[in-house]
């Protein structure tokens, strides 16, 4: 099946002395990530892209690769100002909201 998604984009750059075809970092949280011909944006709504993150890490990876896509490093929990990081959402879905327990 699919290898882990090393999210990147393949693009051409033209310089005065030549052309190079390179890979650049990209992320599925950008709305242009799935942009189709003619400017159609299948995942224009931010909600759809955020949902994709949870689904990809917690549901699709286990389905396809038998492993979670989230390694549990907790960096999104430290960085996220809105408490929608992976652990918070996962536990909330499980009905065990961490915030609720703390209070």
């Amino acid at each position, binding site marked *: 099946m699919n290898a882990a998604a090393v999210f990147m984009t*393949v693009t051409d750059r033209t310089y005065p002395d030549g052309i190079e075809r390179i890979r650049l970092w990209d992320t599925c949280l950008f709305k242009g990530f*799935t942009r189709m011909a003619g400017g159609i944006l299948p995942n224009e709504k931010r909600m759809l892209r955020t949902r994709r993150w949870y689904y990809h890490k917690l549901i699709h990876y286990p389905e396809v690769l038998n492993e979670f896509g989230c390694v549990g490093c907790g960096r999104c929990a430290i960085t996220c100002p809105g408490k929608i990081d992976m652990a918070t959402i996962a536990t909330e879905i499980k009905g065990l909201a961490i915030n609720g327990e703390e209070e």
Partner: protein
Amino acid sequence: MTNGKNIYLPVNGKIEEIIPQGRDVSLFRVRTQMPLNYVPGQFFMVSVWGAGEVPISVTSLFGADKAVELCIRRAGFVTETIHSLKAGDPLWLRGPYGNGFPLEISKNRDAVVVAGGIGMAPLRPLIEWFMKKPEDVGRVTLLYGAKTPEDIVFRDEMEDWKERGIKVLLTVDRADECWKGHVGLVTGLWQEVHSDLKKATAYICGPEVMIKAAMGELFLFGMPEERIITTLEAHMKCGVGKCGHCYTGPRYICTDGPVFSYREIKDISIP
């Protein structure tokens, strides 16, 4: 099938001939030094240096001494650049990628091929395959819908297809003065198909709304989910299952597809 170690390295092709196919669409015949072996339903990452790469389906049936044929619609930056090329210019190819159409499931069965617009491109080699192996398939019906009569691709070949036993039914959204055929959606032509749809196989390609409608209706007519086949489209960057751009639910269209059965995708929102 790329040359050497780097999977992103394309092979050099040369445009042999460009044949216009109605408005905004042309057939590009591309010759590579080594023949590239492919099956109907697969695609190539086609590129022009400096402009970029786009996924394009093969529209020819493989033949050892045959050039690869690509039917390309002007849709944006890269495809516009490809259309500005002339015979003799280089075009770079990487692939073929994707799974291709399951041909064995139509063995001894009638086949219904449903195409919309440029969606005819990946289905043309399938028609050619059925004509080449008539003993392997029952009656073949092609339902093809285009915006206007001008937008019908491979129109000149369809007479030959008819002579060789394919039933061709055309319809357009908007007719002109000369048009004598059907007007309306391609899904309005089911009653013209003289095959038992419960026992037949369907191959569908076209705009997303048309694919959804055709799949759903054929299923309601009693065609089994695994014999309703389609090919999907998505934004692609790598074509080899690495970049994630082409995701559709848990699947990657470039490696798990682009050909899927209704059974595989009915629960996933497309794209």
